[in-house]
């Protein structure tokens, strides 16, 4: 009796999600015991043609990480959707765009121009990469970049979302346990569209720091102070996205003195993550005078980046105006 098939694929990503899966350590043997790995480029040698040859729906579970940056990413998304019963948007890139989504602040030609004209780039003819280039032997191709980076569910139907950059390994282990229980008929899958492997509250709930009523007279920079290790960072004027970020990570960053940068995505019920943070930050500014408010806000040197760091591609606006023109 053959085991159900498992696949994991990376699009515009960094490989951290793959590492997070490996960091379940001995539990990888449970994956091994219960699944056949059909396609996982980082770890084994199946190629695209092998996936194309599979029957539709023959892969039980596919974990997709990475955003949709180019046409190859989109093509493989459609391919794996066809071949998979369950498709999980795994990790922040697939769920909401993550750091590569910051590219949506600029038109895509600026992305390419910047890379191909750095101070060390030797490019006297101002060459840019071409999607198809004629060499003496034949045409060779590379994927074409899209005007903006998109999330997986903006191009394909997604069954579940697992947030985090990357998802915490203990959460991954719990989800694997659940899937194995489902395979053994001992548990039910959650309803389609659910967020799995994460909590239902905010990072503030998991944070060990003391919280009082916040009245901020100044926003500071983490390097320019020795922050009180027991007190809420936002209360000390250090920007922290805990109030709008989904729980599930044990508030690791705030515990070690770094701000929550929001990698677990929007908390339950949040429609636009950045909007929620604008509300939260503005509410605690300690002033009713416009000039003073502006002066306090000057301390937040990059509000759009702070509030949409991981979430730009998944926000209501999705990109800046200039990025839309391609």
């Amino acid at each position, binding site marked *: 009796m053959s085991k159900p098939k498992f696949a994991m694929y990376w699009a515009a990503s*960094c490989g*951290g999600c793959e*590492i997070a899966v490996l960091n379940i350590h001995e539990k990888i043997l449970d994956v091994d015991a219960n699944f056949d790995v059909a396609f996982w480029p980082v770890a084994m040698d199946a190629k695209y043609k092998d996936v194309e040859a599979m029957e539709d729906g023959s892969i039980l579970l596919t974990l997709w990480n990475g955003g949709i940056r180019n046409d190859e990413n989109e093509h493989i998304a459609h391919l794996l959707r066809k071949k998979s019963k369950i498709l999980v948007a795994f990790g922040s890139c697939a769920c909401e765009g993550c750091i590569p989504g910051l590219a949506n602040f600029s038109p895509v030609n600026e992305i390419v121009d910047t890379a191909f004209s750095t101070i060390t780039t*030797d490019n006297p003819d101002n060459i840019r*990469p071409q999607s198809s280039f004629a060499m003496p032997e034949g045409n060779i191709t590379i994927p074409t970049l899209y005007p903006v980076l998109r999330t997986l569910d903006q191009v394909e139907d997604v069954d579940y979302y697992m947030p985090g950059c990357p998802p915490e390994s203990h959460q991954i282990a719990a989800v694997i346990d659940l899937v194995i229980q489902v395979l053994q008929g001992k548990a039910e899958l959650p309803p389609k569209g659910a967020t799995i492997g994460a909590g239902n509250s905010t990072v503030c709930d998991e944070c060990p720091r003391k919280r009082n009523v916040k009245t901020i007279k100044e926003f500071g920079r983490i*390097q320019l102070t020795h922050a009180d290790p027991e007190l809420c960072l936002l209360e000390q004027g250090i920007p922290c996205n805990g109030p709008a970020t989904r729980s599930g990570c044990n508030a690791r960053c705030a515990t070690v003195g770094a701000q929550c940068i929001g990698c677990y995505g929007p908390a339950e019920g949040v429609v636009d993550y950045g909007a929620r943070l604008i509300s939260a930050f503005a509410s605690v500014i300690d002033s009713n005078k416009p000039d003073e408010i502006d002066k306090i806000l000057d301390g937040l040197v990059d509000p759009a980046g702070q509030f949409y760091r991981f979430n730009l591609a998944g926000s209501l606006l999705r990109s800046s105006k200039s990025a839309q023109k391609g």
Partner: protein
Amino acid sequence: MQRITIDPITRLEGHGKIEIFLNDQGNVTNTYFQIPELRGFERFCVGRPVEEMPLLTNRICGVCPEAHHMAAAKATDAVYHVEVPRTGKMLRELLYSAFYATDHTTHFYALGGPDFIMGPDAPVAERNILGVIHKVGLEIGGKVIQMRKYGHTVVEIIGGRKVHPCTSIPGGLTKGINEEQRKEIEQMGRWAIEFAQFSLKAFSDIVLSNKTYLDLIVGDIYTHKTYYMGLVDGNNKVNFYDGMVRVVGPDGKEYVKYAPKDYAAHIAEHVEPWTYLKFPYLKNVGWKGFVDGSDSGVYMATPLSRLNAADGMATPLAQAEYEKFYSTLGGKPVHQRLAIHWARLIELLYAAERWVELVTDPEITSPNYHAIPTAVPTEGVGIVEAPRGTLTHHYWTDERGVVTKVNLIVGTTNNYAPITMSIKKAADSLIKNGNVNEGLLNMVEMAFRAYDPCFGCATHSLPGQMPLEVTIYDAQGNPLNVLKQFCD
């Protein structure tokens, strides 16, 4: 004209495609190695506060975020013209050493190693960590898991998280370690030294004592004579975290040694329109194409390059291995690319020794791990050795410390030209008269895998049912758990 496409390349981090063209006689006319991805960090980091760079650039690579985190941290220190207190520097290098031990381990045992340890023509089903386990011993699986666990535990203790550390800020870190944590890190480090020695012995027993494998290493197919680059400390010994960049020529003699801030005077990047990645080369030698030799600006940056560029290793056990390495392979420099696997294990030992050296320093638990910057931020360069090569981060900011410009030269990027050359040479040498099979194509991919110590799976099952019993040991060598599949 026949065309073979390998897409995607596998057992590696990142994306890539190899196109091999054959003429009517079935011999290779040309080979192209293309990188199909571009995300745009150099553009979208502009406008961000510079203290976020160690966090944003983590996401360039989730396999070696520690490398980007450290290069970024050093660049932000330079931007703020602030000197990190000794404890802060040590904590960063300690995290980094533990990370190196983990990363080199997973590459050797699960990624590039299986090709090499199992032999180039091994069937697909055996050409992976399980094949390695069968050959070297079942306890290996448990040890590899243990090494990865220990390494990531140190990263988490000092860096806050296992993947994408978050504690480096301009001037130092957000936290230090206490005595309890220090003891735990020391215990793990001592185990790591033993594991590294075990790995070197395994390499010696399986590979070096086998004539076929030894011939493969010293043979010509995977050999190129290029320049070699690596960071060296004040004594010209290998250092991963800090130092000057040293480049030696194909003859092994020093060509140049420069401080990180001067990198742009020595490195330029060549552009081709059929790929998204650029080809760094030595500016003052010049770009002469994908060719070997002292007239060609092509240089390599890998564990082998670091050993070639340095005068030795800074710790005693690794130094002994360094000497054995060169005496076995006929002196410095070594040009054979498959020897990178061996060099990687010597670095694994150094990383473990350095780990213990740092964690036993009396000041490692000091609370003085951060100096608040006072100068106006302007511009700075940070260079570290990533496992796969020299990593350069260069930032410019405005007077508020908001990034205005970024230049990055990432580890593997240094090797894009050498890898292209290695793949082409392997394809040329191996594919003749139209004889192509899966094993030969894998040998073409082997040319690639030697360079990139990407990660692999600690234990992983490929299609096919391998009987497997793995015993997990604790740090004292007592069996904790025995896991079995497909056996009684």
